[in-house]
């Protein structure tokens, strides 16, 4: 059997991580990963549980052999479950574009198409590492304030790196809808971040 160039940590992890330790090692991480994508804590809990079940099942069937890292494997199973959850969420809804999504576009520009509130000065460009972390925290909080579908679109695109086509399939929208949704989401997100970053009332 071919022995790949030594990754002692990974190999050791596979062999020596006792399932009994999984909870202490990975449960919180997986839970946070899920929470970053779905708001509902109970569903996040359920998904973590399903992830553990599925992973234990694949260990039984030896499908796990040779995987790089247990944490990566657990996370990838969770990612699939998150996708399935999202697909299910949108399958049962038919959301017309204009009614449900807030129209940040109309609020941001005047009748002539000029900025109502001009984008402000956010400081150093690019921001230093500390500022990046602060901004990122504000950004994640702002993501929660977006309309559901806008937030899901942004997450699928920027957190999960999905392509347009797949996002459209999950959200059950056309690509034109998708561009409109992303445009509105970005306008709203940026404005939200700016308000907090610049400490506006």
């Amino acid at each position: 059997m071919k022995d790949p160039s030594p990754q002692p940590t990974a190999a050791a992890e596979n062999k020596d991580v006792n399932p009994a330790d999984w909870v202490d090692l990975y449960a919180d991480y997986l839970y946070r990963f899920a929470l970053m994508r779905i708001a509902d804590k109970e569903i996040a809990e359920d998904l973590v549980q399903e992830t553990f079940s599925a992973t234990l099942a694949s260990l039984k069937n030896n499908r796990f052999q040779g995987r790089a890292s247990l944490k990566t494997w657990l996370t990838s199973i969770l990612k699939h479950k998150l996708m399935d959850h999202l697909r299910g969420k949108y399958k049962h809804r038919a959301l017309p574009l204009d009614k449900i999504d807030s129209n940040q576009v109309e609020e941001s520009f005047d009748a002539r198409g000029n900025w109502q509130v001009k984008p402000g000065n956010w400081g150093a460009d690019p921001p230093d590492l500390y500022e990046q972390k602060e901004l990122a925290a504000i950004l994640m909080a702002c993501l929660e304030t977006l309309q559901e579908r806008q937030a899901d679109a942004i997450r699928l695109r920027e957190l999960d790196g999905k392509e347009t086509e797949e996002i459209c399939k999950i959200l059950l929208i056309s690509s034109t809808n998708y561009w409109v949704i992303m445009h509105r989401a970005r306008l709203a997100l940026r404005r939200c971040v700016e308000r907090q970053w610049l400490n506006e009332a």
Partner: protein
Amino acid sequence: MKMWMPSCKDISRLVSESMERRLSWRKRAGIRFHLLMCRHCSRYQKQLILLQKLLRTQSESLTVSSQAKLNDKAKEKLRQLVDLEDPSRKES
């Protein structure tokens, strides 16, 4: 020849779209021209790019540093699940 004079509103839409797909040469040139003249939109674009970068690069670090914890009851359920299913416990 009628010149295409996009408003800031148009440009904001196009900037977002350009982050999703490759626009025609003409549109890209029009955007670039507007951005040269308009510091508001120029700032807007920079900020959008920054936010995209933050989402793409900071989410892992945020996940790790998050304070959220799975509640004890859920963890207990998980431990029981693992106990039941632990493959090293199963023997012939």
